[in-house]
């Protein structure tokens, strides 16, 4: 590729951040898609893979006696410190990466070259896995109050909205168009979530162009229509997620917020979530704290406080809790907006939906939620996550914050989510990786123009195929505590620093044993044992039936004394290979790692390597952790897995001989 100045540098050292004395010697490769560091240690050729799209910043530091240090910070919070012997090589690598990490057009992104060797049909099926029209149906729509609107066909009203939108039945085309003209970027109020049980809804929009005194009759009618779509309540909440000061400042620019006097029966509420610039610098400050070398507890806590990160997370959660309560307890509908209605509004609507509706806490429901509130409603992924070279002031960790809110919830309610922490981490990774097409572009319209679905693969299908890795063994769908509405305690002492995300490549800082993995292994083992048991019982029954029949037949012909001798010889004929394999086929192959055969995407080993976010980790297991593999189901002990066929065979033989 023309941007790679030097494809390979030898004798590069990868510095361990925790103990800077240790450094691994190896060779650095630059490819069209990855930076790869391969250790030259003779025993283990450990590899570290970094996608170009993950690179956030590259810093060339002052040359020392040992070489020229290069610091690569990644968007998935990996930090790579390389020391390159020759200054000239370092410069070449630096210049190449600067260019490679900032592609100028979509076609340069990894997803357009990533090919998991699936045929067209499989790819299309992958894209069909998450279907929003099914989701609205699940909510109970359309119904007497809400209808699917075709106003935005061909993006005629709002180019950052999807074409399929639900609006109140009372909202006529005239009202919708009028309202859209009175809203920033014409993002008129539309339905985000409908709560079947009491008809309350969560709607979203952008800010009104009210300035100091402007009014819009159609917009007022629009809000009234939303209110009337909920017969259970005589008012709606309008939640402006911005700090009041920001909203007021917007008035001077002809934007602003709803005047309670102009709208009938609204209750207006500010919830101070800061803007994307504050969030960007907050994350920056927190990551600086994470980068500190052996900080004291005070350094760390002070830095955490100073970054304001957890304050922002709490603000988003508070907003979500407010809306969830309004909808589920007061039965009132809520209209949420911020400025443009695609950042804070997306965060808050999705947190509230998670709290209210347990479906979003399942694996598939969570993908639907992201598809609905983020992807379809025009969250600007390309701008926010810097996938293309662009304005750095547009970059902000908006969805990262949402994922963290989910994690905080998971910590408080260990049994409420079907998925585990790894699921969130891998989604975060792929939002930045650009390996799949889901998060490309800034709106549905752009994605359609780029023909994303025809040219790239869907992450959801990939995650679904590997869902065994993402399950939370503690999930209890049956429990009232976890299945209903989550009542989240929001006192600040309940919030934690997410070590598993922000320090996830510092293996030394992570718990050394995983409860999730252990329990999943135990569960799988149990399941396999149960299946074996079932199969054996089935077989036994069959044999006994045969035996019984024969005995009956035989007993008519001969003396009972011959019985035992006959039946044992008959047993051996019953145990024919055909009979056995037939039995095997009748076992449902429930091992989740194999996936559903119909919808499975088969990825080759090579592709798996680059697509598994954990494999790019520079793993460092120095501590005394017992090898868990002996406990895992594929380990020796119970010997299921691929060998299970043979084992079962011999087991059975023994059992029958007995």
């Amino acid at each position: 590729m023309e941007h790679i100045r030097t494809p390979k540098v030898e004798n590069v050292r990868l510095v361990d951040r925790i103990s800077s004395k240790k450094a691994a010697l190896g060779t650095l490769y630059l490819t069209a898609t990855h930076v790869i560091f391969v250790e030259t240690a003779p025993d283990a050729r450990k590899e570290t893979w970094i996608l170009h799209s993950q690179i956030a910043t590259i810093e060339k530091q002052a040359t020392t006696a040992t070489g020229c240090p290069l610091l690569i910070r990644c968007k998935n919070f990996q930090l790579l410190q390389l020391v390159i012997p020759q200054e000239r090589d370092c410069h070449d690598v630096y210049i190449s990466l600067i260019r490679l990490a900032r592609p100028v057009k979509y076609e340069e992104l990894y997803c357009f070259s990533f090919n998991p060797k699936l045929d067209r049909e499989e790819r299309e099926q992958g894209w069909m896995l998450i279907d929003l029209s099914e989701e609205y149906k699940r909510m109970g729509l359309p119904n007497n109050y809400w209808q699917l609107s075709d106003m935005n066909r061909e993006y005629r009203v709002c180019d950052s909205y999807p074409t399929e939108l639900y609006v109140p039945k009372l909202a006529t085309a005239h009202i919708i168009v009028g309202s859209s003209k009175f809203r920033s970027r014409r993002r008129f109020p539309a339905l985000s979530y409908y709560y079947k049980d009491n008809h309350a809804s969560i709607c979203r929009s952008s800010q009104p162009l009210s300035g100091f005194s402007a009014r819009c009759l159609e917009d007022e009618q629009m809000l009234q229509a939303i209110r009337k779509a909920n017969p259970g309540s005589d008012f709606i909440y309008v939640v402006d997620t911005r700090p009041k000061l920001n909203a007021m400042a917007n008035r001077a620019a002809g934007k602003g917020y709803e005047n309670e006097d102009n709208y009938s029966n609204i209750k207006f509420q500010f919830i101070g979530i800061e803007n994307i610039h504050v969030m960007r610098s907050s994350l920056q400050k927190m990551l600086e704290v994470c980068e500190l070398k052996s900080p004291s507890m005070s350094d760390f806590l002070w830095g955490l406080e100073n970054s304001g990160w957890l304050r922002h997370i709490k603000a988003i959660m508070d907003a979500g809790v407010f809306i969830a309560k309004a909808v589920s307890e007061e039965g009132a509908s809520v209209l949420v907006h911020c400025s443009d209605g695609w950042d804070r509004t997306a965060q808050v609507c999705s947190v509230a939906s998670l709290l209210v509706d347990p479906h979003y806490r399942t694996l598939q429901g969570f993908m639907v939620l992201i598809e609905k509130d983020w992807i379809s409603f025009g969250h600007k992924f390309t701008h926010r996550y810097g996938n293309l070279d662009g304005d750095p002031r547009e970059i902000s960790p908006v969805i990262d914050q949402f994922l963290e809110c989910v994690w905080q919830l998971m910590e408080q309610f260990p049994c409420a989510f079907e998925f585990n922490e790894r699921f969130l981490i891998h989604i975060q990774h792929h939002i930045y990786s650009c390996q799949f097409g889901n998060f490309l572009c800034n709106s549905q319209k752009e994605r359609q123009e780029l023909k994303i679905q025809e040219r790239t693969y869907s992450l959801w299908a990939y995650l679904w195929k590997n869902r065994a890795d993402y399950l939370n063994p503690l999930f209890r769908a049956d429990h009232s505590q976890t299945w209903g509405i989550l009542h989240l305690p929001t006192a600040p002492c309940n919030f934690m620093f997410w070590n598993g995300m922000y320090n996830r490549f510092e293996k030394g800082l992570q718990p050394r044993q995983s409860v999730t993995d252990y329990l999943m292994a135990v569960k799988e083992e149990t399941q396999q044992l149960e299946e074996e048991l079932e199969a054996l019982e089935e077989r036994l029954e069959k044999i006994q039936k045969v035996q019984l029949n024969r005995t009956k037949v035989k007993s008519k012909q001969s003396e009972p004394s011959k019985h035992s001798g006959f039946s044992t010889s008959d047993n051996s004929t019953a145990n024919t290979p055909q009979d056995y394999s037939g039995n095997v086929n009748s076992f449902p192959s429930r091992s989740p790692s194999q996936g559903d055969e119909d919808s499975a995407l088969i990825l080759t080993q090579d592709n798996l390597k680059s697509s598994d976010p954990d494999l790019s980790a520079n793993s460092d297991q120095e501590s005394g952790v017992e090898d868990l593999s002996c406990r895992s189901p594929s380990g020796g002990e119970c010997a299921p897995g691929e060998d299970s066929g043979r084992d079962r065979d011999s087991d059975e033989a023994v059992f029958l001989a007995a």
Partner: protein
Amino acid sequence: MEFAELIRTGQAQAELLRGPEEPPLRGTLCITGHHLLLSPEPQATPDLWLLLLRNVDSIEKRVAGDSGTITLRCKDLRVLQLDIDGVEATLDIARSIEALSSLESVITSFPFFYRPKGLRLGDAWHFHPPECYYKRVARETNAWRLSEANEDFSLCPSYPRAVIVPRAVDDSALARSARFRQGGRFPVLSYYHAPSGTVLLRAGQPLTGPQKRRCSEDEELLRGVLAGARPGARGFIVDTRSPQAAKQARMTGGGTEAKAAYPGWKRLHRPLERGRPLQESFVHLVEACGDVEQSMDRWLNRLESCRWLSHVKETLSTACLAAQSMEQEGACVLVHGADGTDSTLLITSLAQLILDPLSRTMAGFQELIEREWIQAGHPFQLRCAHSAFSHARPKHEAPTFLLFLDCVWQLGRQFPLSLEFGEGMLLALFDHAYASPFGTFLCNNEKERCLCEVRTRTHSLWSGLSQPKEQRKLRNPLYVPNPLAIWPSAEPQSLRLWQGLFLRGTRPPEPSEVAWEKVWQIVTDQEKTEGSQPTDSASEPRP
């Protein structure tokens, strides 16, 4: 002793609030010599609600109209509210609780009256004395002996009757070394690390004083330790005070080992907080945790300034240092601070958990606490007289044992499969250390326990905890024996507030209990399946 004179009222009607999301309980309130009882009205649950008065840390009363409210803040960090009918009744009950909860006499305390069904007095008391541990050591090495020089507690009142010392040192030398150590606490064996042949010792500070006195028997003892380990072995003295504090201690007759006097030993200072500052840290943390209205910034600020997590970090990293010196450097380690009864025990017990797989089992952990805390003379009676809510001016209180439990909790969080006991065990130990129907944590040392006849007249906590119905709460179903050392990360990012304890008063316990149930269910499902025999289950119903 008669409690009747302290009980001002027999009973009253009251409603009890037990914290977030628990339904209130209404019924008749009663006070006995040791308990507050609430007998719910017939339609409510038939169970009697019971609170050990010794558990009350602070009491607050308010009257309005013809009723009153009493807020009880308990030593186990729970907060209870009683709404009582009648002003007089409220005041009488409050006064009675105040009087009865602050009784200081040991032998009239509840453990001396507690006679539960199914337990026999004297059970489980003889499980863990140093003699048992010595048997384990003697199997590995001949360099140590069990000395009964302290048979009558004359050498050291805070040591048990028997201690493990180098074989080369005789009892008279021990007596002289005892005179040279604070509180008579001469260096004794705490843990023998068989794989490296090194030992962990603990002691009180040497009484060098301003004149820099020396004691040849004490020096001989430590020389004997190195000689017993292996030729050319080195040792580290981990002093849990700063170099300045250790130097300052000389002015009051204490001090630290002079380099020249102890060849082969190298002194390391790892200052750990103790005494009143530690108690204040605990009080401030609990205060901060109780405030649910504060902003995030204020909370983080208070979490930082109370310094509790800093203490956890320093304690863990010092314990790791001691353990590392033994396992990796092959050095012997002597730990002491001033008295050798607080931060010293913190380090020696944690180092053992890190190194010794046996101490991570249910029985081993109980043995560790018995040996390294109770028998080793941690003054529980003084340290745990009050918890975090008490308004009484702290005298000798310090949550050293709680700090130990917190560190163990952090270990368990980082190695969730390597401890046989769960969070429930740590919580139970915290509760019982501050207020308990069992005698295990009574008194300050063995000598006092002998005087009070604790072992013959009260029940042991260990037999209480071994009841089958307790097991689900206490055991860790995920436990897989791990023969290796477990090295925790003591970096701030890896440490967390122990929510299960410190947020007890403000957070509903259900979500974590539900999770714990589920963990048990998954594991027992597997055991059931593994245990089932296809032949039996299939053939049994057949004729």
